């Protein structure tokens, strides 16, 4: 059975844009496009990423094309790095186009410290963060939410946490959607999902989740950097986590529900994991409401961790920790109903971003007042030991990719293969040579997330910039990391 796409099937239609035409396979409704360089394409030649992208081009009501970002890699159902927009009137929503970790995303905090003044206390800070913020598999917070408070968090997201004293009102302007999708309905989330998640608010989780301390080591756009309060040598803190068990269970629940209804809706799909519901159906409405509730929980999760970061920094570095502020928080596993202007015409679309981040450009009406003039910051984490980037959406990003760019470096190696590359002791030693301290509750977890397992983030970001989807603002060098394990 064919599961890969030959490179011959790809036509280069732009400096960093390739297309698989609609007639490549009879069940495709639109073409499939990949934003990539030739080098990055060769890295996915033998895996199933492009075949999975072609599968998503079969979804009912899909608009224009299925798109993949340059950090594309093989997933299940949708490829990671996939973007699909479906029309509200005749399209579908697919939980697989969001992923099990609903609103897995990344937040960047700006601190008042320069690298030189921070360096002597780096180890103490990192260890205090490691102590204060639960990380690793199944790790819960000491005080689980009550059932009522779980509902409150799911309905209100970050504003609820601010009411509880775990943040500041100004944090909201720096979070995608203000940290709350008001379409959330807690009753659309199963009791089992809530039970699975209510002990996990403020926890990092495991796998590729992390908290990383970084320093700004290069500024590309001095005007924007000044507007956003970013300075060369400034210490920043990046948080990568999502909705934890509540999101995972919600995806399980709705994939199962939709699989059971596909025949009745007359929907045939090339992969069960693409299970979907017509956007006009009750099931789609329920899923989007549940997804929104879990997205709110994820933003609240990153907010609670931000509160704990502020507290840990205050304990070690003193009152200046009160100056820690959020630069931006962006989701990279989410589906949102967005009004998109394409060819001068406004369309209401369900934009699925799976391992892909929103990058709204200057003037976009959905941006908060703080970022409407400049465009939103886009945070692109690298892998352990490699740089991360802050970018800003370009004017053409809406037309080209529904306002979307990559979410990181993208894996290029299985976990099994990664574990054979080096031992955790050698990896820690390699990172130490670079001046990076790595803490992780699991030895194998650390190696599975080694930098060799990922694509070159510089190459990925260069493609995004070269394709005029977003521009570089600053580069961030890692100083210390807590991996989820």
């Amino acid at each position, binding site marked *: 059975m064919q599961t890969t796409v030959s490179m011959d099937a790809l036509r280069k239609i732009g400096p960093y844009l390739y297309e698989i035409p609609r007639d490549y396979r009879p069940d495709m409704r639109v073409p499939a496009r990949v934003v990539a360089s030739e080098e990055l394409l060769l890295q996915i030649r033998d895996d199933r990423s492009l075949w999975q992208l072609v599968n998503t081009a079969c979804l009912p009501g899909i608009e224009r094309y299925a798109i993949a970002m340059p950090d594309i890699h093989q997933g299940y159902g949708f490829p*990671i790095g996939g973007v699909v927009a479906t029309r509200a009137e005749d399209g579908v929503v697919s939980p697989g186009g969001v992923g099990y970790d609903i609103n897995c995303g990344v937040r960047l905090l700006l601190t008042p410290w320069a690298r030189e003044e921070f360096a002597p206390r780096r180890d103490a800070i990192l260890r205090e963060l490691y102590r204060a913020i639960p990380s690793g598999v199944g790790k819960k917070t000491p005080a689980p939410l009550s059932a009522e408070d779980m509902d409150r968090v799911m309905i209100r997201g970050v504003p609820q946490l601010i009411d509880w004293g775990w943040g500041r009102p100004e944090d909201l302007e720096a979070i995608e959607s203000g940290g709350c999708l008001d379409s959330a309905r807690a009753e659309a989330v199963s009791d089992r999902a809530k039970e699975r998640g209510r002990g996990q608010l403020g926890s990092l989780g495991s796998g590729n989740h992390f908290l990383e301390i970084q320093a700004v080591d290069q500024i590309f756009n001095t005007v924007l950097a000044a507007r956003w309060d970013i300075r060369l040598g400034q210490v920043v803190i990046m948080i990568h986590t999502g909705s934890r068990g509540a999101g995972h269970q919600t995806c399980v629940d709705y994939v199962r529900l939709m699989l059971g209804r596909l025949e009745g809706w007359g929907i045939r799909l090339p*992969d069960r994991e693409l299970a979907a519901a017509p956007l006009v159906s009750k099931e789609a409405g329920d899923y989007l409401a549940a997804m929104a509730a879990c997205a709110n929980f994820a933003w609240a999760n990153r907010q609670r961790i931000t509160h704990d970061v502020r507290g840990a920094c205050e304990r070690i570095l003193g009152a200046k920790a009160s100056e820690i502020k959020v630069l931006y928080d962006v989701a990279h596993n989410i589906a949102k109903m967005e009004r998109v202007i394409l060819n001068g015409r406004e369309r209401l679309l369900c934009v699925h971003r799976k391992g892909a981040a929103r990058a709204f450009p200057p003037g976009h009406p959905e941006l908060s007042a703080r970022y409407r003039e400049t465009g939103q910051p886009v945070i692109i984490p690298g892998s352990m030991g490699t740089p991360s980037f802050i970018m800003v959406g370009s004017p053409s990003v809406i037309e080209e990719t529904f306002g979307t760019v990559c979410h990181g470096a993208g*894996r290029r190696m299985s976990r099994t293969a990664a574990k054979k590359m080096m031992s955790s002791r050698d990896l820690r030693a390699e990172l130490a040579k670079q001046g990076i301290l790595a803490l992780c509750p699991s030895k194998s977890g650390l190696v599975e997330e080694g930098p060799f397992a990922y694509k070159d983030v510089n190459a990925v970001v260069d493609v995004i910039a070269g394709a005029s989807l977003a521009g570089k603002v600053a580069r961030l060098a890692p100083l210390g990391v807590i991996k989820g394990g």
Partner: protein
Amino acid sequence: MTDPASRPPFEFLQHTADLCMLARGGDLRGLFRNAMKGMFCAMKPNVTTEETSRHMRVAGTDREDLLVNFLNELIFNAETYQEAYENADFEAIGDRELSVRLFGRKTDGFNMHVKAATHHDLAVRRTEDGYEGQVVFDI
């Protein structure tokens, strides 16, 4: 039928970001039991001495769906109740439903987090020795 002796009850195949498992069994009971054992082997639980037992009923639209739903129920229990199971006594198992008593121990966490069993590349196949099942887990 007995479990095939020549091939392992479960093994893990290469997958870029996630975990792909192939499990085997002499019959459906054996397949599902070995799939459970394989999954918990991957999760590497930190088991305690406290034993636990739990009864479960699971339904699905077909054998493949039943396998995924069974594994997802185990994942729910593992994360919510901090339990890992070492054996399963199937009171009944068919193409669309099963009834099972699970035996295992309480855990103090796991070394690998499995978010869910997915339907991607899902297969339950008859073989000359019994059954084999392939499942991709999101980790």
